[in-house]
């Protein structure tokens, strides 16, 4: 029989090397992420819950172009969360999700745009994205812990890796699907690459890109419980506690709160898609 491929050893070696030589970078990332998460948490928990809930209602009302039903639904959902005494945990989760989404989009959108411009990047990225999406998300936890220790930061890192692929894919797809003649319009009028991107490609591809953003947020939320396994706070941790104690009540309440947040975020981003279409 052939000897076993030393894949595991190779990955370990790689991780060691990264830790050894890129430690400064990891520390930097850790600091920035930690600061971002704390800032969102502080912001969300700054005011009394009732005030924050009303602010959310108003924001939903405005971004959905005065869909008062959705605004009422949002306020009601958040009131339920508050009533279940899960307010602080929910805002921690929301801070994690928002931070992870922002990072994922900051990386994913430009990468998606570049992939739409360069075929070789597109074909090179495809297996990487497949890998990111199909590798069980638990596996990301290990290097995340090695590089960033325990806590919110590695949770966000693992979440970013898991949630980023649809943002890249759908941005790439949206731009590639633009009719050939629309690209020719930009070229034939003498547009620069940047003008073409900003005035033609991004606006035309916006509905597809927003679908990617929506997917990104939903995937980030779905990672909350897994991220809790390496010390990320929030509702995910509460669900984990429920599992460990076989306490269905605690688990269900926290799970419901995650669902409520998911519905609110989903409706907001879907409405953004519609109004930009």
């Amino acid at each position, binding site marked *: 029989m052939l000897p076993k491929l030393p894949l595991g050893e190779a990955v370990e070696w790689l991780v060691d090397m990264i830790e050894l030589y890129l430690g400064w970078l990891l520390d930097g990332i850790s600091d920035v992420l930690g600061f971002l998460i704390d800032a969102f948490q502080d912001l969300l928990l700054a005011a009394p819950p009732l005030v924050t809930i009303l602010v959310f209602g108003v924001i939903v009302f405005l971004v959905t172009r005065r869909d008062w039903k959705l605004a009422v639904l949002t306020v009601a959902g958040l009131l339920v969360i508050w009533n279940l005494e899960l307010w602080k945990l929910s805002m921690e989760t929301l801070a994690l999700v928002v931070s992870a989404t922002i990072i994922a989009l900051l990386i994913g959108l430009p990468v998606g745009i570049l992939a739409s411009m360069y075929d070789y990047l597109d074909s090179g990225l495809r297996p990487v994205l497949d890998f990111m999406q199909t590798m069980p998300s638990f596996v990301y936890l290990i290097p995340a812990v090695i590089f960033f220790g325990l806590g919110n930061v590695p949770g966000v890192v693992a979440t970013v890796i898991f949630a980023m692929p649809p943002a890249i894919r759908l941005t790439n797809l949206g731009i590639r699907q633009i*009719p050939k*003649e*629309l690209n*020719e*319009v*930009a*070229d*034939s*009028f*003498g*547009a*620069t690459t940047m*003008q073409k991107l900003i*005035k*033609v490609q991004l*606006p*035309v591809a*916006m509905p597809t890109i927003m679908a990617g953003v929506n997917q990104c947020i939903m995937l980030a939320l779905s990672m909350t419980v897994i991220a809790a396994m390496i010390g990320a706070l929030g509702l995910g941790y509460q669900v984990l506690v429920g599992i460990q104690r076989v306490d269905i009540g605690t688990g269900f309440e926290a799970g419901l709160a995650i669902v409520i947040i998911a519905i609110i975020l989903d409706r907001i981003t879907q409405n953004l898609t519609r109004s930009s279409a």
Partner: protein
Amino acid sequence: MNNDETPAIVVEVRNVTKIFGPKPEKASQLLEEGRTKTEILEKTNHVVALQDVSFTVHEGEIFVLMGLSGCGKSTLLRCINRLIDPTSGAILIEGTDIVTMDEDELKQIRRERLGMVFQSFALLPHRSVMDNVAFGLEIRGISREERLKTAQSAVELVGLSGYEQSITQELSGGMQQRVGLARALASDPDILLMDEAFSALDPMIRRDMQDELLDIQDRLGKAIIFVTHDLDEALKLGDRIALMKDGRIIQVGTAEDILTNPENEYVERFVADVDISKVLTAADVMKHPGPTVYINDGPRVALHLMEEHGHSCLFVVGKNRKLEGVVTLDDAIEAVKKQIPIRDIMKTDIQVISTSTPVSEVITQLAGVPHHLPVVDDSGKIAGIVLPSTVISALARKEGSNGVA
């Protein structure tokens, strides 16, 4: 052809060849050795799209590139503003070769001298009519105030006043292409490239747009290069026509040149196939239906319309202008006396022809009817009318351009 009265040459295409594929040099060599397109495709898997094409376009001229689909006419058009890079040859725009230009010079010349109109209109869906028209000016970095002023006059030129803030997708095809035309004209280019610009439009609207283009050209005097697969359109618009086949220009000349002195068998066959009375359809020769009366109107309305327009009969339409019948002057007078509605006195067993009926058939049908024939579209809506005189004048016009003695 180049006598002293010829206006300035604006575009000169010299020996342009375009080969699609990863390594055009090899194919290009084979082409020089005299191999055919098919041989090169089999040997090297390269497609020869254009082969040694040369022509010139003058100021104020509409130059039509015509040929069947796949003959390379759209590729040739895209070489002129280098949306496609030619493999070899030169294309002089007002004396400067666009093929050898660097990126910046190319952008400059595209912004200022070249305008393009697309078959699918290619309007930006997220922009209003006005902002679509102003697109080229925006790319040039002209201030918003100034570009809206310029765009406004382009909007007026193509007859879109009042639609400035409309969403483009809500406009009809004809209107959308007006936006496309206005967008190209707004930058005031010297050269207008039109790629099957009217091919996606209904026959009637298409003819309106052709007339409109001729009208605009009368006023502006651009150099227009117009690509079409439609011989009728080419004959109507083209000051000169280049007939293309398999990536080559077979013949260049005025409509009359091409029809009367076909240079070879291919051209001859191309234009001989044009048995005018079979090619033209009812839609091409019909007139506007004129006044019609609504089925629920009273007979007095019909009588009034007939008196006003001097007709002895009127077509009766229902919902959505669907043709329901015909009412004659005598019947209308009778109905007024007896006070019965139009619905009850109109004749419903009328002969109609469809918009796609060939003119040859229309002629036989016209022989046996007392009034003019109504033309209806697929949904039964009245689209126009044909009279013996409209058919004859349409045919005469064609015969005239055919130069048949």
